[in-house]
């Protein structure tokens, strides 16, 4: 048995990790495991095609696959969502999304593998997610917010859980209706604020002694302009 080597000093970096986990993989017969694994590879090949090759690293996991997305967390979320559609064809997947520290793993040659908390948390989150469900960590949501402010609203709170290392994780799940709801909420607040501000203006004017009525003042001030306008139209 070859002994595991100590990690090399390769620089660490931050990236988004999509951990696709096949549910109950260890308990399935080997024939089914082989079939599911082949299916997963096909699904990953299709779903990862939209990410340029220089922007993703594919990793093998014992019970699934992990895709490290280097540039855009939104691409990671899209990838997870598209992969989960494979549930319909009998591939029981769950997905865990995280944005965390990673490092090229030690080996006989740099680039042989990857290690890091980014993968560990994504794997824990995927294990916690039920079948055909996507869960994302708080850091992934923050990364989404940084990449595209406002898009993080597509990840709605889904509770917290403690991993086997007793770390508490705040989890979020994709909910694209939440984006629409947020937009409507912001619009409603904007209208309400505008009404309040105009109302305050009216209130201030009413409370100020000696002020000309608002409509009269407007008409008086604007009269020269509309008279001139009428004259020009007459010519």
């Amino acid at each position: 048995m070859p002994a595991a080597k100590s990690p090399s000093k390769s620089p660490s970096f931050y990236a988004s990790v999509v951990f696709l986990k096949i549910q109950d993989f260890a308990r399935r017969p080997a024939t089914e495991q082989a079939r599911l694994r082949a299916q997963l590879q096909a699904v990953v090949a299709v779903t990862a095609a939209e990410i340029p090759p220089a922007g993703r690293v594919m990793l093998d996991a014992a019970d699934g696959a992990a895709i490290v997305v280097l540039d855009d967390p939104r691409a990671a979320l899209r990838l997870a969502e598209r992969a989960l559609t494979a549930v319909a064809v009998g591939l029981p997947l769950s997905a865990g999304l995280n944005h965390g520290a990673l490092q090229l793993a030690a080996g006989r040659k740099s680039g042989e593998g990857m290690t890091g908390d980014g993968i560990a948390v994504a794997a824990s989150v995927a294990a916690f997610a039920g079948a055909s469900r996507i869960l994302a960590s708080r850091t992934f949501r923050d990364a989404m917010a940084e990449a595209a402010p406002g898009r993080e609203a597509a990840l709605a709170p889904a509770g917290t859980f403690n991993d086997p290392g007793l770390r508490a994780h705040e989890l979020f799940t994709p909910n694209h209706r939440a984006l629409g709801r947020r937009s409507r909420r912001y619009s409603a607040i904007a209208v309400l604020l505008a009404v309040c501000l105009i109302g305050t203006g009216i209130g201030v004017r009413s409370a100020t002694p000696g002020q000309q009525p608002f409509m009269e003042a407007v008409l008086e001030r604007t009269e020269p302009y509309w008279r001139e306008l009428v004259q020009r139209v007459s010519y």
Partner: protein
Amino acid sequence: MAKPAKKIGRYKILSELGRGAMGVVYKADDPNLDRTVALKTISLEKDAEGRADYQKRFMLEAKAAGKLNHANIVTTYDFGEVDGMAYLAMELLEGTDLRKRVQQGAIPPVEAVEIGCQVAEGLAYAHGRGIVHRDIKPANIMLPERGPAKIMDFGLARMRLADHKTSTGIVLGTPRYMSPEQISGQPVDQRSDIFSLGIVLWEMLTGRRLFSGTEMAQVSHSITYDEHEPPTRVNPELPAMLDFVVARALKKDPAVRYQDADEMAADLHTCLAEMRAREDEEPGEGTRTQKLSVDGEPTIVGPPAAAILTDTRLPVSRHFDSTAALKRLGKSARGRAPRPVGLLRRIISDAPARRLFVVTVLGAAAGSFVAFI
């Protein structure tokens, strides 16, 4: 050990076949049936204190083993005790044992899987009758010149293990093929034999030792904690499905291991069918890919699967090309922890927030106009 006798019971000794931990194995002649047998003797002299108990256990185990009649199990013809020596008369097989084959290197994959299937079927038969071998290892698997592989020494391991347990409860013997539960002294069932068969299968496919070590503690630790390297990483020509079979047989937790040997045999049969179908394909049809080493470096062997579970080190997938991204990462470290988004950036980039800001500003302007015009 007593001097080789000319006769043991009614058996006439012809020659010595070998010596083991428990006694000597002879080639002997059974005059009653006029057939040649392998006679395994077990010395009882050393066990004077618990002799009665030992004899009783021997009789029970030998009787149970004697009931096993299967093509993949060496048949026990007779057993008995004479002059302080227990003996077992067994089917004599011309051939070699698996240990000698494995010492010569990896066994061709199809043959290795065939042997695995046969042993699994023999185990399934014995397990179905409530008998657990407890000492499945290459030395206990006979490869006759003709016919299928056969498992030897059913029931004897239990006597040997009980015999070799020290007062502190430490199990002695050859632990390299023991399951994690067996090596820790916990009760074992048929799943322990499946783990041992998983080790044998791995060694047949790779020609290497899976759990090696010079000291008991080292081997024990390896069996309990180290994950194996998938066989296809050692030999990429093997079908990927074998990885799953071996991985399932070698699960540390018996609850997620194969629950019976029949299940493992069925999976191995499927592998065998796939491998034979591949062999039957016309050479030259389709394409064949070969991994080439770069800059004269040896072909990369990925990190062991141990890393996957214990420290989250995941190997780069061989099914996808990630070279471009890895090169990019090799040049410079990228990315940083996400930071909170500032108000200005949010107003510029977030449409609902921008709308809220604009409407608020317009509302404030309108309110001021109303108030102070």
